[in-house]
């Protein structure tokens, strides 16, 4: 191939954005169509620089909006290339219409989403509003809690999305600023090993295969629409999960780093746990360890794959607990939080006695401190001892003014 390789040190100090850009270089993306937006800008900037410096053989397409960026990705993917881009927040929101096109057309695009709040009021900082907005779009969603995972999950996302039994697009999420702009030691994979893990792109039904003409994005109406959507859902429910497990296993063999659909920390004999996503999982782990050292049986559960939702794994992780706190970093705007609802749905038909309460935290980048988490675990301990939720079902953490609680 006509590009240069980069010699990486075993551990590089990278932030989440640069880690994702390096992964995009190593898997040799054919086309990136992008409209940069804070805090994800350095990802596509990084790809563009690698391309300009001769480390990638590909195309960077500059477009006039995020809607056009994803449209360009869809065109390039349908044509038969390995395609990726990155976005955040308002850009993600503008992309939504095309996200459904990408998944409905079964195009294995990888989208790095650097999670950021949605306006109004305008805010460039991290919360999970955009990530939550994507959860019905038919994409696979992986969530990274730090820069290392943002790097690793990109390889896994390509491997799963491009599998011919899947052919669905995948998002790799990381927390805006908290992960995207936080530099940490990242254990690298060599260029050859990284590329070989994902393998050469094998197109299917590609439009540039002129010997086998196909049409993409056709009108189906009532006659066939439902069958297409049902097939897509079926593949998400049945085909994706085994491929994710295979990819996680292969990745562990390559690197020694083990990923799971649902990550469990200190959960073996835990009576109390919080369930959360993003960088909060790691902060919660530190607090849980502190409390473990004091003899309190607490654990942390992190959702690694948001879609397809790991229903069975969530049941296995949570059913024997006495109290669970579901932490949502997105305003549910008139309902319980997404994690509260999904967990409640998973546990409802089991014989669990766990008391489940929900918390909304960290909107617009508001800090989730260890002190918040200590108080939260304390409250969950009261629920565990009482055998029921002793507070209202939904509470807000870290917001100024009088305490907010509902339901």
């Amino acid at each position: 191939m006509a590009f240069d390789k980069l010699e990486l040190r075993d551990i590089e100090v990278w932030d989440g954005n640069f880690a994702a850009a390096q992964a995009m270089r190593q898997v040799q993306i054919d086309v990136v169509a992008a409209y940069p937006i804070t805090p994800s800008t350095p990802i596509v900037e990084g790809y563009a620089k690698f391309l300009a410096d001769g480390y990638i053989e590909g195309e960077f397409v500059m477009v006039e909006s995020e809607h056009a960026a994803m449209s360009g990705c869809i065109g390039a993917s349908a044509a038969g290339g390995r395609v990726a881009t990155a976005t955040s927040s308002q850009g993600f929101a503008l992309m939504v219409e095309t996200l459904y096109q990408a998944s409905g057309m079964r195009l294995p695009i990888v989208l790095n989403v650097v999670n950021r709040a949605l306006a109004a009021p305008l805010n460039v900082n991290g919360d999970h509003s955009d990530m939550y907005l994507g959860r019905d779009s038919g994409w696979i969603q992986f969530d990274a809690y730090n820069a290392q995972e943002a790097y690793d999950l990109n390889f896994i996302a390509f491997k799963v999305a491009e599998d011919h039994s899947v052919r669905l697009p995948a998002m790799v999420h990381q927390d805006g600023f908290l992960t995207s702009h936080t530099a940490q030691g990242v254990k690298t994979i060599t260029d050859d090993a990284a590329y070989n893990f994902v393998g050469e792109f094998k197109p299917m039904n590609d439009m540039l295969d002129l010997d086998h003409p196909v049409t993409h994005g056709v009108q189906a109406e009532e006659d066939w629409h439902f069958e297409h959507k049902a097939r897509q859902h079926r593949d998400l429910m049945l085909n994706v999960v085994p491929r994710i497990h295979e990819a996680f296993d292969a990745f562990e063999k390559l690197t020694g780093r083990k990923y799971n659909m649902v990550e469990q920390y200190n959960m073996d004999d835990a009576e109390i746990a919080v369930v959360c996503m993003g960088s909060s999982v790691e902060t919660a782990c530190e607090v849980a360890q502190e409390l473990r050292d004091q003899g309190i049986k607490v654990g942390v559960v992190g959702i690694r794959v948001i879609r397809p939702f790991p229903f069975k794994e969530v049941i296995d992780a949570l059913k024997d607990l006495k109290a669970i706190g579901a932490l949502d970093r997105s305003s549910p705007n008139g309902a319980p939080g997404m994690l509260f609802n999904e967990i409640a749905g998973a546990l409802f038909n089991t014989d669990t006695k766990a008391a489940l309460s929900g918390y909304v935290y960290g909107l617009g980048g508001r800090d989730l401190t260890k002190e918040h988490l200590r108080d939260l675990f304390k409250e969950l301990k009261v629920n565990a001892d009482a055998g029921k939720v002793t507070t209202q079902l939904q509470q807000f953490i870290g917001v100024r003014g009088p305490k907010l609680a509902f339901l």
Partner: protein
Amino acid sequence: MLEIRWHSRAGQGAVTGAKGLADVISTTGKEVQAFAFYGSAKRGAAMTAYNRVDEKPIKNHEKYMNPDYIFVIDPALVYTTDVTINDKESTTYIITTHMNTKELIESQPKFAGKKVYTVDCIKIAQETIGRAIPNTPMLGAFMKISKMYDIEFFKENMKRILAKLPQKIVDANMLAIQRAYDEVK
């Protein structure tokens, strides 16, 4: 766990400084974290950057910090922002100023009784690099005060980190680091 908070203005290189320091420390087998908060702040706005260093993986992502070291790389910030917020008794300050430590404490009584060192990183940067980018000299001063690494080892590593810059600029940065190391009091 060693924790450092930088007070800077956007554009003065605190983020680059924090990341550079993390990179050097990482080569010695320690775990590092370097991050900053500037949101959509424009050049010249007050901002903070942070380092965490530990023997074991750093999982804490809270922004809240009781720093062991506080670096101030813009001289006016000691008057316009509260650089002492969330400090502790043992916190060590390294502050960029044209004043000596005694004069600084007289002009900002908040520093009375605290461990304060001063060095004029702005002047050093102007005289060596030719621009008021006070980040690398601050790291030279930090090496002197913390005795973290031998200054030659530190400069060798910084050369690698700055390698993308023209040789003249790299050399000037090495001079700036050494001068701040020698001049901090």
